């Protein structure tokens, strides 16, 4: 019978996987069983056996083999695939005007100095002298101007978005560039100057269709510390150090990036020594296991991603601030961090801002208080009249569906825990695990909040850039959809609106800090959403091969900074 034999094969495969994996864990010298991984590693080992680098003739050249899951195409500004680690790998070959330091703050890099005017609409950038591209051509202000124009004209998704609001770019022909913005933008350094790779005009000016253009070894040129010398589609990338890098030669002579098909391959490969570092976050349950294995070490730090509960504030009973406050009081954030993330996360601040941020307001804190939550609900008239343990509002039980996306198993576990916690205060939450597309469509239809909302409660999370740039909190809470275009809960409050609007254009640093401090108190009090946790990033590496990895807050270890001499880092 067809179905039986198929299912039997599936079971057989599952048991084979179990057996294969068991041999990995008991015998760390065993080679990877994952076919893609093995071929990729073999292929790259052949190449590395004939080292061509001569950067450090006196010492043994250092080759670092890194694992990623999923290919990144040809890794140029138009073809790389993922925001992480694709952009990070791209930036090994290119430089931006500013570079993130360990705290995640942009520091001058290709730029010697970046000076905004008082109202943050005019930015004067002075270039470092004597930077050259890898083909020996000098990097000049003309290249910077060309880059800005090119990305806008040829609509390079992310980089064109970074440059929204740029009115004009002028150069003095020597080392100074002036960028004029149509409105004050306190985050211009973060979103644009530290994000955009500067491309060489002498090559790209001849490229009309960058998405189709095939770069070869001569034309694939940046100014970065590494040069991509070899690429096998969906298998591997080989980078060689650029010994003439303007901040000094990299500490690693060769970087081989091996493409794996799934998350488990790299974990087995780093144990067996086939790779030296995993360029992907490892999950919380792997941290202790890998850290215990010698010579593997794990480096951890804040990532600025978020895990939160959203509710539709425009509909009863979530339009009642008492209900929202009660939910915020009822959840035990520490328990979520300990149970789901095994401690590898930071407890969520009810005021949105990550405690590692300079503008974090320590006055807002979240402690579970079931008594206060129950009292709030009782006072507001949500009582359990029929004695079934669930409170009622308008005669209907307080029973809600909480959507979560099935592809994120940790978020699913968070939802289960929240459901358990809210049951303690008489609110029933039924977790519905749905396809990611269904979940997005319900919470954020068409990625445009003007389309409304089709959910009661939802487990949600924002990617790191929204938290990393603190003033983007305005986009989450402002009642006007043109400003608060990420306001998924339909929250609106005039006081919050005023502070958020001020934040977006405030040029005075002290006033901006004051505003965001007050805004955190308001958010904690009015609860437009419930922030549960900020998962930490954790990366595993083989310390015997290379241990210079630097964790950049909000970015992780995958950056050129990790591969440069400590004195050359920003």
């Amino acid at each position, binding site marked *: *019978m*067809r*179905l*039986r*034999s*198929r*299912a*039997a094969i*599936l*079971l057989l495969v*599952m*048991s084979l*996987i*179990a057996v294969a*994996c*068991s041999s*990995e*864990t*008991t015998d760390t010298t065993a080679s990877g069983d994952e076919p893609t991984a093995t071929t990729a590693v073999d292929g790259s080992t052949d190449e590395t056996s004939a080292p061509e680098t001569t950067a450090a003739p006196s010492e043994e050249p250092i080759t670092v083999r890194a694992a990623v899951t999923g290919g990144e195409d040809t890794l140029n500004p138009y073809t790389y695939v993922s925001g992480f680690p694709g952009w990070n790998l791209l930036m090994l070959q290119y430089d931006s005007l500013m570079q993130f330091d360990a705290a995640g703050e942009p520091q001058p890099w290709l730029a010697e100095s970046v000076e905004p005017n008082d109202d943050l609409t005019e930015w004067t950038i002075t270039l470092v002298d004597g930077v050259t591209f890898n083909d020996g051509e000098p990097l000049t202000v003309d290249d910077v101007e060309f880059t800005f124009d090119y990305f806008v004209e040829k609509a390079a998704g992310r980089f064109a978005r970074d440059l929204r609001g740029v009115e004009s770019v002028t150069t003095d022909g020597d080392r100074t560039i002036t960028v004029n913005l149509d409105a004050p933008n306190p985050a211009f350094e973060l979103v644009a100057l530290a994000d955009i790779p500067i491309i060489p005009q002498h090559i790209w000016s001849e490229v009309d269709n960058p998405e189709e253009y095939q770069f070869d070894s001569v034309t694939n040129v940046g100014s970065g510390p590494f040069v991509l010398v070899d690429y096998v589609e969906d298998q591997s990338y080989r980078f060689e150090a650029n010994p003439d890098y303007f901040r000094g030669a990299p500490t690693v002579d060769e970087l081989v990036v091996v493409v794996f098909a799934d998350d*488990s391959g790299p*974990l*087995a490969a780093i144990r067996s020594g086939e790779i030296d570092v995993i360029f992907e976050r490892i*999950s919380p*349950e*792997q941290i202790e*296991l890998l850290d215990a294995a010698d010579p593997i070490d794990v480096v951890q730090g804040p990532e600025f991603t978020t895990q939160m509960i959203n509710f539709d504030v425009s509909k009863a009973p979530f339009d009642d601030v008492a209900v929202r406050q009660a939910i915020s009081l009822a959840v035990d954030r520490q328990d979520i961090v300990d*149970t*789901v993330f*095994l401690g590898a996360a930071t407890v969520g601040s009810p005021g949105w801002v990550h405690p590692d941020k300079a503008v974090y307001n320590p006055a807002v804190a979240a402690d579970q208080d079931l008594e206060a939550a129950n009292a709030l609900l009782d006072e507001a008239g949500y009582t359990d009249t029929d004695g079934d343990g669930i409170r009622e509002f308008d005669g209907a039980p307080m029973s809600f569906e909480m959507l979560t996306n*099935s592809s994120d*198993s940790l978020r*699913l*576990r968070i939802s*289960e*825990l929240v459901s*358990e916690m809210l049951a303690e205060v008489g609110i029933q939450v039924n*977790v*519905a*695990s*749905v*396809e990611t597309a*269904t979940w997005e469509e319900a919470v954020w239809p068409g990625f445009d909040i003007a389309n409304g909302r089709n959910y009661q409660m939802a487990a949600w999370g924002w990617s790191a850039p929204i938290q990393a740039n603190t003033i983007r909190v305005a986009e989450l809470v402002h009642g006007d959809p043109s400003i608060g275009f990420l306001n998924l809960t339909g929250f609106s409050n005039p006081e919050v609106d005023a502070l958020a609007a001020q934040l977006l254009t405030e040029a005075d640093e002290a006033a901006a800090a004051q505003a965001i401090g007050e805004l955190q108190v308001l958010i904690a009090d009015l609860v437009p959403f419930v922030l549960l946790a900020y998962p930490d990033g954790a990366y595993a590496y083989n310390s015997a091969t290379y241990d210079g990895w630097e964790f950049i807050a909000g970015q992780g270890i995958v950056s050129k900074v990790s591969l440069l001499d400590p004195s050359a880092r920003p």
Partner: protein
Amino acid sequence: MTSRSLTGTLRGVIPRSLADRLGWLGAGIVAFLLGTAVFAPVLAPFDPAERVARPFLAPSADHLLGTNDVGQDLLSELIYGTRVSLTVGIVAAVVAMVIGTTVGLIAGYYPKRLGSVLMRFVDVVLILPFLPLLIVLAAYLGRSLTNTIVVIGVLIWAAPARIIRSQVLSLRSREYVLASRSMGAKDRWVIMRHILPRTALLATGSFVRAVSGAILLEAALSFLGLGDPIQKSWGSTLFWAQSRGAFLTPAWKWWVLPPGLAIMAASLGFALIAFAVEERINPKL
């Protein structure tokens, strides 16, 4: 089709008594699992939905199979999982048999036009790439126990339909059926009175076989995360084991192996019964 030809080969070789013994072994396994399912609240040391200890605990006296990624007792999960797996297996097989028997009866009794149209449809269902279709359907309909049952049921009815049709084809030309029809009996009456009862025995074999297949499919769907991940089934235990890395750590011994063996036992139990039953009832050529 290998398993069918295997059964065919075995039929000549294995003496009836051995088939019977295997059948009883299967019945024993199934009875044990049914007992576990019925008495789950008594047998399980903890509520499987309750977090009772630290996450990722190795087996100990308190938790014989350790705990899962949020600190729920894995042994209790395994015991309660019996309920979900058996329920899905049996109910999905009932769904499949209702569809399969109806189609088989109609196609066999009206073999000319209606029958050939129906059988071509059955052929289409049989040649559909099975697992991909199952995955697409499950993803499209959403995650719930009911959907899992329906999806499995509507995909495995075709094989029983063919078996039943062939029996009906032979029955409809028997003399007593012809006699009954020549005396003016209506089709409906003939089918209900003379045909259906004679196919029931054959259907039993198909049913037990379908249960066995449905249990495996439920496990496969849940393992892939397409079942209801909050339901405590063996497949969802494996799903969590996989998504929290247990396949790569020593935890596979207490987290992956037991539900895997349980799925195997349940499927094997029903398959053995089906083998013994078919040995007795299948018409010999």
